[in-house]
């Protein structure tokens, strides 16, 4: 229940906050302080870029933002433990803090700053440009081992996976495959999306999955169930494999942190940097998804 409240808070806060926050700070003297945002490597470039702009803005000259990577898990741990002010994560905190730790997630407040879609990608020479959910499941479970069985070239399939702890993988498994997949013998596992892209591009017969922000023409993004991972399809919910990028704070953000989060949610940023970097602004989404994966229209 708590998680839901947080979502709404962040979602509803976004349009109005952009002008309220500077207003509040303008009333007093200029804000000053430091912010440490740590976590997801997928989100890191965006936050870095925005923080640079933020600090260059004369209004916030007293605030200094430091962005660290370390992975979603690390970010959540650090924000939970108080070592970081913001924990960047690709997945809901509830998915990471489970069982005995479930309480820890309740202390965190979610700020969804962008949406990222994930597409199955393949080496350009496999001769396939669309896969159904069942075909994907067959491939990732090892039932199908040759591209010709899914209508492509006669070539062995090489799976390039992310580690089981990856947010990207979790999203892909849950939303594209419909459940956890196994690590098959002979599959390759790579730490980061960059490597996955590189390998899929280089390795004949390779298949993997990537956030759209990583896509370029060295790999081929496959349609999922005939649907293209276009902005249009994602915002309308037609293309289902997408996830929020979260920035968690422990409890409600301090004024300084709030100023930064509001800046990130401002139209100026969402319409330029966020889209430029291959993410989709949260405000553009016509559907929303909660921690249990239930999708609803907004």
């Amino acid at each position: 229940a708590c998680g839901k409240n947080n979502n709404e808070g962040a979602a509803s806060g976004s349009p109005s906050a952009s002008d309220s926050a500077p207003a509040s700070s303008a009333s007093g003297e200029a804000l000053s302080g430091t912010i440490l945002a740590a976590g997801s490597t997928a989100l890191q470039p965006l936050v870095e870029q925005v923080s640079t702009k933020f600090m260059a803005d004369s209004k916030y000259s007293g605030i200094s933002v430091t962005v660290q990577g370390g992975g979603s898990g690390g970010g959540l741990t650090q924000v939970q433990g108080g070592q970081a002010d913001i924990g960047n994560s690709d997945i809901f905190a509830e998915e990471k803090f489970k069982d005995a730790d479930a309480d820890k997630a309740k202390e965190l407040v979610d700020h969804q700053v962008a949406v990222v879609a994930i597409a199955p990608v393949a080496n350009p020479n496999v001769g396939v440009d669309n896969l159904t959910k069942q075909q994907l499941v067959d491939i990732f479970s090892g039932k199908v081992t040759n591209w010709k069985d899914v209508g492509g070239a006669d070539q062995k399939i090489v799976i390039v996976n992310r580690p089981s702890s990856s947010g990207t993988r979790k999203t892909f498994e849950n939303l594209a495959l419909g459940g956890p997949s196994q690590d098959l013998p002979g599959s390759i596992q790579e730490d980061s999306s960059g490597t996955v892209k590189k390998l899929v591009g280089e390795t004949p017969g390779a298949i993997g999955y990537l956030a759209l922000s990583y896509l370029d023409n060295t790999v081929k993004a496959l349609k999922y169930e005939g649907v293209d991972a276009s902005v249009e399809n994602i915002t309308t919910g037609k293309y289902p494999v997408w996830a929020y990028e979260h920035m968690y704070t422990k409890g409600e953000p301090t004024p300084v942190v709030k100023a930064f989060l509001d800046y990130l949610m401002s139209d100026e940023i969402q319409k330029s940097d966020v889209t430029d970097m291959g993410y989709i602004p949260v405000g553009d989404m016509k559907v929303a998804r909660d921690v249990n994966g239930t999708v609803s229209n907004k």
Partner: protein
Amino acid sequence: MNSPVKRENAAADRVSHFPKHIREEWVGRVYVYACVALLVVTIFSIVWFIASKGLTPFVSGAIRIQDLLTGRVWKPEGEPPLFGALPFLAGSAYVSFIAAAIAAPFGFCAAVFMTQIAPKVGRRVLQPAIELLAGIPSVVYGFVGLSVIVPFLRDTFPGQGFGILAGSLVLSIMILPTVTSIATDALSTLPAGLKEGSFALGATRWQTIYRLILPTTLPSLLTGIVLGISRAFGEALAVQMVIGNAPHVPTSLLQSAATLTSIITLEMGNTVGGSLHNNTLWSLALILLVMTFLFVFIVRLLERRAKR
């Protein structure tokens, strides 16, 4: 203000209880003992912290040690989660042993070259070259492995190039300096006259090396090999970049595999502290630690043998 006092000390021999040189002695003593104490504290805290983290999964009863050590399936996010580390143990063992098997003869030959065949060329050229090999950072080895060895293996053999063989090749170059330098030391500190004694009997160089030097220095050579294995076992990034990282007990040299270090590098940042998954990664680190002790122990045994 010091000098008059000192002068007095020097003059009045036994009057002062703390003549200058005794004070001096204490300063030195406190300094060096403090440094050593710090070393000891460091190692104990390493063991303590890693062990206390790494043992939690067992203490809490979430996993049994034998399941971790013998389990073949690593599925930390599955339902139920499975933590079988055998694939990583096997991967680490394979890469390091194969690397040592490649490096050992190379290292021995290099050492023989440097000490017996062409000491001058050895000292001027080969020795610095090997020291340089030791100086090259592991990420650079990883980079070269990724951009040369992996594509080469992919094009030459079936498979994707990633795997045990790629890892072993990269590692064998990385541990070559270790193996070589120990072999060189052993060969050059041979009891004086041993070699000359053999030459003087008219034995050829190879005879001397093979029949006299090799048997006499064998324990030291083995020490070098074990040290090499130990280093390979703990190497992280270079291996992680070329081994493929699939959590399976490898069935072929050309198949993607994972090692203890590579899986830690891969997953540590993506898991939240305190979770079972995260703690189990610390258990893997603990295994690395225990292996280090084991290697040191073996090295010590061999060294004792070498002394006799």
